[in-house]
């Protein structure tokens, strides 16, 4: 019986192989006649498309740019995800470059280790990397899309301290890495700027070198529960998918939480919309879109970083739900001070 | 009783012209490299219990698989009720009224008795299981054959005997008129055996035919109406249980005069090989498992340890082999105190070991025979050369053991699991003898082996004794103990309570000592 099944299957495969050969040609050749010359390669961070966060934000920016430039979202964008253990990141970038995608955008600092070497190997291709500074690398065809997360987080700290009743707030970081520490540093500084004696609990879900803290809602929930029980009434997370757990804990505790990266109020369930006070926005989509637009109109200055901060609205606070409408003036005040340089926000805790 | 060709079975004439329920003519079945059955002749009358006896590995099961359609014979014919029949599958056999009750039950725990019985041949009404109809038929079967079962009990709550009855009922439910029972008593305790025999009598009374496979001769004589003996794949004769002794049957099975364990002349020398002084082994329950055991085994001497199982014999063996720490006392081998030695050092110093449970301690079942040859001898030639395994040496020596000890196996690459119990045991004995040990610890050396292998092992032990080996024999077989031992020690609650002279001892007396009835008084020698 199994033999027959195997034969049938093999036959089926052979037939469909023949069938697909006929139309296989044009889908493989990648046209290139749609939206000008723009063919964008995107190498995702762990998790790939559909992470409701970082990767989705980046691809939204790419699609917006391609559309506005008259390209075809299906034809002119190639998205690749790394494998489970991230061991093939180099392959992703080189294969995109080999296949003549230009520019190639690497989403996430994890590519920072290798992208300079690959960019040097393909001098005719433009590369961009999100979240990593490339200024000191001296590679002409490489651009760093970096963010002043500490500035946005500072405002989140201001909002939290202003709204906290108990004078006790919390921070849950995904992984104890320099990037997430920028969030913490800004958040704590912002909170202390409002209430110098405020108590800020800080927890990281996984240590450096272990990315599991970004995909561990259970761990996020436990961490946040601990903070709420200890008296915190607002918890800010910078923990990717683990933030879901933080929101759950907030719902259960009847307290509030602050989201990250995108306006998480918009994608939350009605329960959680009641507790997501605001989100610290990190507009990867805007950064990527701007980058592609400047690439398309030849105004790109590569070999350096593009900083996205409060002044460019690359970072900021969301206002969905109206929970922080009453303190808008305080926030606006601090924002202006930061932009003006009157307030210096630290980048390390 | 002399061997008679089965074809000349007196019953054939006695039964006149009524066809046999089952008749096999010249059945031969070959497997690659081996003929499992050769020229089998079998005649089973309707309404009788017909026993098929033979040693393990004689080909009984192959024959039954032929009869149950699990494979087809290469030669010969099968006649059922006088009609030539071809059985292509068990389904064919069932359709022809043959049912098989396997040695290992094939029942699912979470089904009720009723469900288990109907499983596979459910009466349906409109696609649904017709429970009422099934229940009616099952009740009828239960009452007709006096099978005392409750159809609604879960199988998991049943004892072994009841499960067997469920299997029988299941076969009857499918309309079998001839039942094959493969070693049905192997899993039963004596009382259950009696119940089973009662059920078989009921089946017979109702006109059903039972083919009963066994190698337990006493049972066979008790239950069977006629007996067919199989040896080395072929039928060697038939016997009438009323006029044949178990010993005669056994001799037919083995094909020669049955040896007895008796040793004639003493070969005991002066030099002690093994000396135990106050050996004590702690146990978890408080009372020591072995309590101050003192004994000496000399060259050429067999010291037997008698005792009801669980009185510390196993722990004593473990202690001598270094598998269990001593709580007190000393063990010396040829004058060296080996109390603190590792098992390996003891073995290297000349201790051979035939363990009580060969599957657990004596063999690697999933390894080939030549690797089993190495087990326990990993540090000694011919199995090893330096730090390396000597494959060809081990293989050659395995072949020697197979030859000299009559281990029946296709070759040295066969897995140990594929051998019958007797052949496994002979391989172990051959292995342990091959390094020429000074001392052999033989724990139940003939347990679970067939008569032929038992005789062979007794001979080997006697030869080893004659060559001056000291042997410590632990056994539950009183005849074996009395027959082989030069000195007998009785073990009771961890103590050696009596030293007896086997020359003037009956099994009944020995039994008395083992249960403590003769406490102390029996220290005759």
């Amino acid at each position, binding site marked *: 019986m199994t033999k027959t099944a195997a034969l049938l299957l093999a036959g089926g495969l*052979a037939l469909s192989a023949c069938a*697909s050969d006929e139309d*296989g040609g044009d889908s*493989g050749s990648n046209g290139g006649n749609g939206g000008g010359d723009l063919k964008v390669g995107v190498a995702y961070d762990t998790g790939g498309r559909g992470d409701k966060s970082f990767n989705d934000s980046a691809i939204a920016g790419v699609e917006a740019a391609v559309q506005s430039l008259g390209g075809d979202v299906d034809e002119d964008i*190639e*998205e*690749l995800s790394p494998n*489970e*253990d*991230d*061991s*093939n990141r180099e*392959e992703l970038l*080189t294969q995109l470059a080999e*296949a003549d995608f230009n520019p190639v955008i690497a989403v996430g600092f994890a590519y920072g*280790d290798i992208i300079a070497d690959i960019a040097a190997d393909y001098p005719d291709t433009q590369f961009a990397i999100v979240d*990593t500074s490339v200024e000191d690398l001296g590679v002409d065809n490489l651009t760093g899309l970096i963010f002043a997360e500490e500035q946005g987080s500072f405002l989140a700290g201001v909002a939290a301290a202003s709204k906290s009743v108990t004078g006790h707030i919390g921070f849950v970081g995904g992984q104890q890495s320099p990037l997430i520490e920028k969030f913490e540093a800004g958040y704590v500084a912002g909170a202390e700027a409002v209430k110098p004696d405020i108590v800020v609990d800080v927890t990281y879900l996984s*240590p450096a*070198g*272990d990315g599991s803290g970004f995909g561990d809602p259970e761990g996020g929930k436990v961490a946040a529960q601990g903070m709420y029980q200890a008296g915190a009434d607002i918890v800010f997370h910078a923990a990717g998918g683990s933030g879901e757990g933080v929101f759950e804990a907030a719902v259960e505790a009847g307290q509030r939480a602050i989201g990250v990266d995108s306006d998480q109020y918009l994608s939350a369930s009605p329960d959680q919309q009641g507790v997501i006070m605001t989100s610290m926005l990190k507009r990867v989509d805007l950064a990527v879109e701007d980058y592609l637009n400047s690439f398309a109109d030849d105004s790109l200055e590569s070999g350096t970083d593009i900083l996205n901060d409060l002044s460019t609205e690359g970072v900021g606070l969301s206002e969905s739900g109206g929970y922080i409408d009453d303190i808008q003036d305080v926030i606006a005040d601090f924002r202006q001070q930061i932009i003006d340089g009157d307030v210096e926000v630290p980048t390390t805790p | 009783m002399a061997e008679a060709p089965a074809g000349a079975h007196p019953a054939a004439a006695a039964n006149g012209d009524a066809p046999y329920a089952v008749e096999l003519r010249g059945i031969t079945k070959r*497997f*690659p490299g081996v*003929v499992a059955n050769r020229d089998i002749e079998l005649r089973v009358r309707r309404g009788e219990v017909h026993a098929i006896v033979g040693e393990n590995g004689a*080909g*009984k*099961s192959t024959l039954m*698989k032929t009869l149950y359609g699990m494979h087809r014979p290469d030669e010969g014919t099968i006649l059922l009720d006088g009609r030539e029949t071809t059985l292509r599958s068990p389904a064919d056999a069932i359709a022809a009224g043959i049912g098989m009750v396997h040695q290992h039950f094939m029942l699912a725990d979470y089904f009720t008795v009723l469900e288990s019985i109907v499983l596979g041949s459910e009466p349906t009404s409109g696609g649904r299981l017709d429970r009422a109809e099934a229940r009616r038929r099952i009740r009828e079967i239960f009452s007709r054959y006096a099978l005392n079962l409750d159809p609604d009990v879960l199988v998991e709550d049943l004892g072994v005997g009841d499960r067997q009855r469920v299997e029988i009922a299941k076969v009857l439910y499918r309309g079998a008129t001839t039942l094959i029972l493969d070693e049905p008593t*192997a899993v039963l305790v*004596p009382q259950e055996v009696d119940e089973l025999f009662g059920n078989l009598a009921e089946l017979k009374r109702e006109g059903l035919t039972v083919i009963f496979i066994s190698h*337990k001769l*006493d049972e066979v004589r008790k239950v069977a109406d006629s007996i067919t003996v199989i040896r080395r794949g072929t039928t060697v004769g038939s016997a009438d249980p009323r006029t044949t002794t178990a*010993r005669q049957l*056994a001799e037919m099975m083995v094909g020669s005069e049955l040896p*007895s*364990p008796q040793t004639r002349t003493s070969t005991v020398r002066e030099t002690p090989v093994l000396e135990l002084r106050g050996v004590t082994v702690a146990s978890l329950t408080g009372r020591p498992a072995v309590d101050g055991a003192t004994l000496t085994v000399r060259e050429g001497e067999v010291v037997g340890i008698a005792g009801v199982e669980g009185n510390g014999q196993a722990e004593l063996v473990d202690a001598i082999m270094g598998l269990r720490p001593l709580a007190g006392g000393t063990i010396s081998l040829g004058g060296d105190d080996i109390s603190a030695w*590792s098992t*390996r050092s003891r*073995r290297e110093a000349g201790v051979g*070991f035939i363990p009580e449970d060969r599957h*657990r301690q004596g063999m*690697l*079942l999933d390894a080939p025979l030549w690797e089993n040859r190495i*087990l*326990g*001898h*990993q*540090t000694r030639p011919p199995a090893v050369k330096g*730090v*390396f*395994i000597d494959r060809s040496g081990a293989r050659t020596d395995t072949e020697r053991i197979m030859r000299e000890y009559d281990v029946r*196996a296709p070759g040295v690459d066969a897995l140990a*699991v*594929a051998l019958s*119990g007797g052949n496994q045991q002979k391989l172990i004995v051959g292995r342990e003898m091959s390094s020429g040990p000074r001392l052999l610890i033989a724990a139940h050396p003939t347990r*679970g082996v*067939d008569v032929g292998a038992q005789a062979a092992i007794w001979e080997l032990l006697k030869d080893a004794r004659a060559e001056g080996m000291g042997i410590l024999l632990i*056994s539950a077989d*009183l*005849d074996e103990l009395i*027959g082989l031992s030069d000195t007998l020690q009785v073990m009771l609650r961890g103590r050696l309570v009596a030293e007896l002279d086997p020359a003037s001892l009956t099994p009944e007396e020995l039994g008395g000592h083992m249960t403590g009835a003769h406490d102390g008084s029996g220290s005759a020698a």
Partner: protein
Amino acid sequence: MTAVRRVGSALLAPAIAVVFAVVITALVILLIGENPSTALRVLFDFGDTPAQQTQSIVVILNRAVPLFLAGLAVSVAFRMGLFNIGVEGQYRMATVLAAGAGAAVALPAPLHVLLIIVVAMAVGALWASIVAILKVTRGVSEVISSIMLNFIALGIASWLLTGPLRGSEEGAAIITTEDLPESGRFPAINGLFDVVGLAQPRGELYGFLLVAIVVGIAIAVLLKRTRFGFDLRATGLSPSAATASGIDARGMVLKTMLISGAVAGLIGLPDLMGRTHHFGTEFTAGLGFLGIAVALLGRNSPVGIAFAALLFAFLDRAAVPLQFADIPASVVTIIQGTIVLAVVVANEIARQLTRRRAERDTGQGGPPAPESPSPNPTGTAGSRIDEPQGAGA
């Protein structure tokens, strides 16, 4: 004949598993509305130019090397019945310390490479020995302790990386140890392609491949040909029989875990010495767990593990081209997962077939009756108690 049959039955289970996995995967691909044959073509399409094709080979081999070592490390313990789930932690510890040690010293090239390898093996072995010591002295299950030690290893490695061994400057997004100097790197063996007349690939072929081959042969010889290997396998087949044969079970647990850990220590080195030259936050984790799958698929034999590692690597290579063909890369993971699942089942089926065949070869009928020591001492030869007695008296 028997040799052919043995090889046949050895290949049977993995073959069934692979076929099963391909069927399942084809169904999954159909379900998401893509064409299974495209996936099949992508799997075997190594590229158009000779250089692309050799590059595909390089990608496969480079991925196979650590997988092979991981499978080997797991299998050594497996063979004696130990479940070393701790390979993950062992190679993490080994890699971070080897990276630290390698960056801290200056030695001539061969010695430097040797030192890094020795440090890695020693650390892996030591870390594994904790599991062994807990097991033999306290009876702690190696499964539990090695899982716990994986977490501890994660913490310690992270602390070492961010603390004493930190090499990257403050504020860098990726934290790494100091780079290994040139002398501590394992040269690529791309010369091999010239020797066999193939085009030079774009990337470098890990020289550590040679080390892996040597280690594989060494382990194969150790297991198959030495007394120690016999003791190890015997313990795995039947601990009680092994003890009765004079094998010191505790000693074997310790020695086996030391070897398993030492091999585990090598897993991170191909990447460390051939590509990244430092341990960092982007360290490739999870190979220890993949190793369990590879060992299962390879049925714990070094040759089998080599094939299993190559198969996994072959599938992993397709992860990128599959995405170009608009088929999610997780297809690869599905195939791998199904293979491993299927192989466990198939192994069992193949084992039963082999056993049954072995039994049939000896002409024995059914399954060997378990000669359970029955309470009745005359269990199998009922005539014994009365008959010889009469004859002998």
